[in-house]
């Protein structure tokens, strides 16, 4: 079960560390760092159900405004 209550002893410190992590990075560098961070945390958490709940929470209220590079195919 995904814990959405406060679970950090020093929340401001952690938030600051996240911001600091991206200082002076170009957008694609930030994207890469975030991706690594998510992979590391996902592996550490190890619980696929919790991860899916977190993914759903993160996507809540966002309707796609982009387009992936695939095409429908019919043969």
């Amino acid at each position, binding site marked *: 079960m995904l814990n959405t209550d406060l679970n950090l002893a020093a929340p401001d410190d952690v938030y600051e560390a996240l911001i600091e992590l991206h200082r002076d990075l170009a957008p*694609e560098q930030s*994207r*890469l760092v*975030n*991706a*690594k961070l*998510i*992979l*590391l945390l996902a*592996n550490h958490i190890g619980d696929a159900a919790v991860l899916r709940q977190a993914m759903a929470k993160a996507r809540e209220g966002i309707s796609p405004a*982009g387009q*992936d*590079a*695939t*095409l*429908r*195919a*019919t*043969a």
Partner: protein
Amino acid sequence: MDGSMAERVDYQALVLPYARSPDQDAQRPVRHPVIIVGAGPVGLAAAIDLAQQGIRVVLLDDDDRLSTGSRAICFAKRTLEIFDRLGCGERMVGQGITWNLGKVFFREEPVYSFNLLPEAGHRRPAFINLQQYYVEGFLLDRAQALPLIDIRWKNQVTALEPQADGVLLQVATPEGEYRLEADWLVAADGSRSPIRRAMGLESKGQTFRDRFLIADVRMDAPFPAERWFWFDPPFHPNRSVLLHQQPDGIWRIDFQLGWDADPVAERQPERVIPRVQALLGPEARFELEWVSVYTFSCLRMERFRHGRVLFAGDSAHGVSPFGARGANGGVQDAENLAWKLALVVQGQAPESLLDSYDAERVRAADENILNSTRSTDFITPKNEASRAFRDATLELARDCGFARRLVNSGRLSLPCTYRDSALNTPDTDAFDGPMQPGAPAADAPVRAGGEEGWFLSQIAHGGFTLLCFGEEPPDNFPGIRGVPLRPLLVVPAGAAQRQAAGLPVIEDAAGLLARRYDAGPGATYLLRPDQHVAARWRRFEPVLVTAALARATGQG
């Protein structure tokens, strides 16, 4: 067993002569039990399998040549085991390049390697690489040795009319058109399947916005017989490259080009040669053997059985090439279909048995599509975020073990375990290990008649096998009239001499059979003609075996 003369046949140049069939002069359309359309690997495998089980087959092909260009090159362990049962596995493996190891590089560094067959005690390796024209040629040689197969080249199906109890076909030949009737039609006519189109059916899915260049080059090269895959190498920045060895000093090099590449221009030698030189170095000497630029799609038909018409191979489903799941999946379709169709044609099983072909192979196709789509998502990221995850995985893979397991340059073809198949008898006894109902049987070294051999060759007779572990042969073997069932007793190494003559017996030479099947004395397995597990018990019980056999033949 295979003469060196046979290996020198240039299968790409072979012209297969059209010959007039007496059917073309018949007053009324001649009716055949099974007509297969398409003499590719899938159609040929299905024809051989059916003929080995006593079924007469007409095989129609619209062309008079085998495959041109290497095309499918990776043939998986399970497919080789099927070729063994079809009588041409040894030739394939003798000609092919055996490999088990894959290596992945990110930029210049190796980040991950995998062994696809990390244990001994199997007759066949994880993979061989062999040009499709050899595979078709060896299958064709085997098919031509079987009198029950009637192959008709330059016979193109131009129209068909499905009927309640068969199919009526219109066939064009160099000498005009004629008509044929089939009780059953197998459409192994490829990804553009004219049969599918003629029936107004579709195969649906997604196309990936990327282009790849295949350059098959002839050269002396120092690379080992391994699958090498580079992400973002210095010689082809920002994209991927795959290198594979084939027989006859030919190497497959696959360059990712991106969606904007011009497919016509990229095929020209003046564009291809510099790409190859970038990989091999400016001094390298090589010749271009075959060049192709392609995009790929993952798609499938909703159902593979439409009344008396059965779709198999690329006509039924398509995958991206990164898991070698196309031709392998197709040959496995053919094997799944052949024994069921044989029993139905012989009147020994109800037509509904063929619905299990649809259910089991749709499941297998979905597994193949899932795996190949995942690989494609890794190799061809669909958006900026997926590209970031891909690069993050590759960078972390250098020093984080978990990330190496996420690197996906292709999850290579494995046979499907038909977990939920209606033909399975669910376990009532506890077993460990992967040999659950629906699983493809694992191989192991055995001794039979005093000679060293392999387990899978002992269960390659085209019928069901009742495999009994123990020192004592069980008596009162059950059966169902018309369904071929062969008992096979497994005894420990050195114990065969103590057995009474008559009952087939094998020795578990290295103890691996008992281990792989989690089998103590009394354990009993019912294996299907396609070597998948139908049922298993801790103790032999004739009534349960009969019920499982009925269920596995659609009579339960």
